[in-house]
C-alpha cells in the first residue's frame, strides 16, 4: 500500500466514524436542521380573475 492510499483510507475512516457518531448520537438531527433552514413566508391570499 502506498502512502497516498494510506492517507485516503485514513481520511475516509475518520470521516466515516464522524458520520456514524453524528447519525447515532444526534439521530438524524442534522437532516432536520437542514430542513428547518428552508423558512417559508406566505403572503395573503388574493382572488385572481379567470382567464377564460
Amino acid at each position, binding site marked *: *500500500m502506498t502512502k*497516498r*492510499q494510506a492517507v*485516503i*483510507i485514513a481520511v*475516509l475512516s475518520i*470521516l*466515516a466514524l464522524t*458520520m456514524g457518531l*453524528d*447519525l447515532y448520537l444526534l439521530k438524524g438531527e*442534522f*437532516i432536520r*436542521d*437542514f*430542513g428547518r*433552514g*428552508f*423558512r*417559508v*413566508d*406566505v*403572503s*395573503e*391570499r*388574493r*382572488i*385572481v*380573475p*379567470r*382567464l*377564460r
Partner: protein
Amino acid sequence: MVRQLFWKEFREIRSYLVLSNLIAFLLVLYLSFDRRIPPEFAFPFSFTMLVLPMVRAPVHAVTTWKREWDQHHDLLLLSLPVRGWWLVTAKLCAALLETATLTVTIVVSVLLVGRTELVQPIYDFTGPGLMLYWTLLVVVLPWTLGTAVVHILGQLAALVSRIVPLFSSLVGVCTFAIGLWGIIRVGGLLAPLLRWLPALPLYSISVSGGIGYEQWLRVQMAPLAGALLALAGLFWLAGWLVEREIEP
C-alpha cells in the same frame, strides 16, 4: 477538444437516450388512452420516468469511468490538454442531457395527448406559461439538482476507489455515503451564514369552489446554497483527482 469530449460522452448514451425517451412517450400514451386509470393517477404518473435519470446517475457515473479504464481509454483521456474538471463536466452533462430530453419528451407528450383534467381548473386561471413555470420549478429543477448531486458523488466514488484498489467497492460506497452526508451537513452548518441571500419567490395558485386564489411564497434557500457550495467543493475534488492523482 472540449467539444469532442462532450460528443464522445453523448455517443455513449445515444442509444440509451432513444430507448428511455421512447418508453417515456409510450407510458404517457398508455396513461392517456387507458380510461380505466383515473386522472388523479394518470397525470402525476406521466412524469414517473423523470425519476430514471436520478436513479441511473450513480451507476452511469461509475460505469463510465470503469469503461475508460477497462478499454484503456484513460491513456488517451488523461493525456488530453484539458483540465480534469472538463472530463468530470462532460460525463455529468451526459447524465443531465438525459433529464433534459426526458423532460421535453414528457411535457410535449402530456400537452399533446395527456389527460390534464386534474389541472384543468388551475389551467383556466393560469394559462400555459405559469404551468410551464411550475413544471420547471417543482419537477425539473429538483430532479436535475438531485441527478447532478448523485452523479458527482458517483464519479468521486469511482475515482477514489480507482486510487485505492484494496476493497475498492467498499471504498466507493463509503465515499458516496460520506459525500452525501457531508453535503447535507455542510448545507445545514453554512445556512446561518448565508441568510443574507435573497429568498426565492414562488407564485402559487389554488382553486376552491370555482374561485382562484393566488399567493406568494418566499422560501429561504440558505441550506440549499450551503449544500451547493459543498457540492462545488466535491466537484473540484473530483477534477483535481483526475488531473493529479489518477494514473493510467
